[in-house]
């Protein structure tokens, strides 16, 4: 597994370089492109995902931010990815970390989860993907749930056999209890008691599907 990833990385090297520049041309102030491109190359060589950096640069260009500010924002994004990778190593993930997991942990930190809590979740859930778990916990923290308690609930849910997107239903259920007038602690207790019985997501309204469209230039998440 590790070997083929490394081979792929070698093969994709020059392609990665070309595709970044091609995507940035005409979208950012041209003076900023070399600096952004260097940062993308650096990330690539360190085995970090490059897409978050390219997206950040495109975002800055679209928002008509100055070149230097775009470069600064991409540097921040790179630092976040490095922090994420370090956290994964501390939590016991064997290097090299999967790019998707680096992205997931970077997201979790951006959404305000304390690093120790993220580490705890990574250690408790040895198998990727952990994205849904992290976002479920972050959803609770955004509603003033204690991060450790929120993490405990989601970890319990995983141990009860709930996986991936179903974990979002667990946090939804806890938020529902909050709306009912319970405290955050009570909400967690109630949901925990009911595991694994947690309602699923709502069905879409009719006509929603019929009117759906695809974006012109869909980027990978």
């Amino acid at each position: 597994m590790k070997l083929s990833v490394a081979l792929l990385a070698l093969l994709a090297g020059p392609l990665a370089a070309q595709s970044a520049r091609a995507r940035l041309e005409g979208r950012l102030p041209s003076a900023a492109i070399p600096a952004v491109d260097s940062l993308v190359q650096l990330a690539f060589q360190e085995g970090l995902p490059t897409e978050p950096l390219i997206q950040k640069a495109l975002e800055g260009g679209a928002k008509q931010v100055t070149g230097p500010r775009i470069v600064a924002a991409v540097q921040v994004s790179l630092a976040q990815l490095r922090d994420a990778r370090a956290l994964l190593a501390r939590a016991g993930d064997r290097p090299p970390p999967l790019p998707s997991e680096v992205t997931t942990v970077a997201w979790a930190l951006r959404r305000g989860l304390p690093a120790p809590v993220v580490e705890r979740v990574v250690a408790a859930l040895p198998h990727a993907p952990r994205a849904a778990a992290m976002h479920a916990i972050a959803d609770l923290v955004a509603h003033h749930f204690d991060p450790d308690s929120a993490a405990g609930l989601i970890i319990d849910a995983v141990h009860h056999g709930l996986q991936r997107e179903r974990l979002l239903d667990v946090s939804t259920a806890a938020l529902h209890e909050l709306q009912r007038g319970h405290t955050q602690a009570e909400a967690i207790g109630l949901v925990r008691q009911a595991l694994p019985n947690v309602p699923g997501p709502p069905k879409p309204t009719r006509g929603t599907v019929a009117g759906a469209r695809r974006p012109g230039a869909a980027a990978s998440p």
Partner: protein
Amino acid sequence: MNTIDPRIHQALDGDLPLEGVPAELRPVVRRIAAAADLLAAVGPAVSLESRVMAEIRRPAPSRSRRLTRWLASPHAITFRIRPAWSLALATAAAVLMLFVARGGGPELSEHEGLAQFVGRFPDAQSVHVVGSFNDWRPRSLPLEDQNHDGVWRTTVVLPAGIYEYMFVVDGERWVTDHLAERLVADEFGRENSVVIVRPVRR
């Protein structure tokens, strides 16, 4: 702690007439009152009179009968729920599972889902949604205000995953979607909204 002028509390507690509050503070009093009005406007409820009176007219069961009834009644009835209020309002960034594409609509793979965007921009000429799902291209995904009531919407097929986005109004004004439940700093001094698109099959 963000404390407000005590006279505002006194006015709202009824201990001070509104005239006793300095003119520049009166809008604060009105805002609280307006918020309370919103909460009060739940809409007409069904009358309970016939239900209660029917129960009253029935002879009260003996204690043992009540216990038997309690034991026999179902306590765990699962209904389809709508999400909690504030989450429900995130239809602006709704997480929808594809259900049935009967009668038309795009075919979705099992790794795709739907994201629905809604925003209220009554004076806008155009509204677009721009984010990491379309490489932040400002004009690629327009919303539509079909009945010209100022409510703009669109539904998009996307690969399952997590995305950041903002609305762009009239091609130039970037607006955070505040109905979205999840917000994150954009490193440019603003906040992006975040949507999680769930895949079809799971």
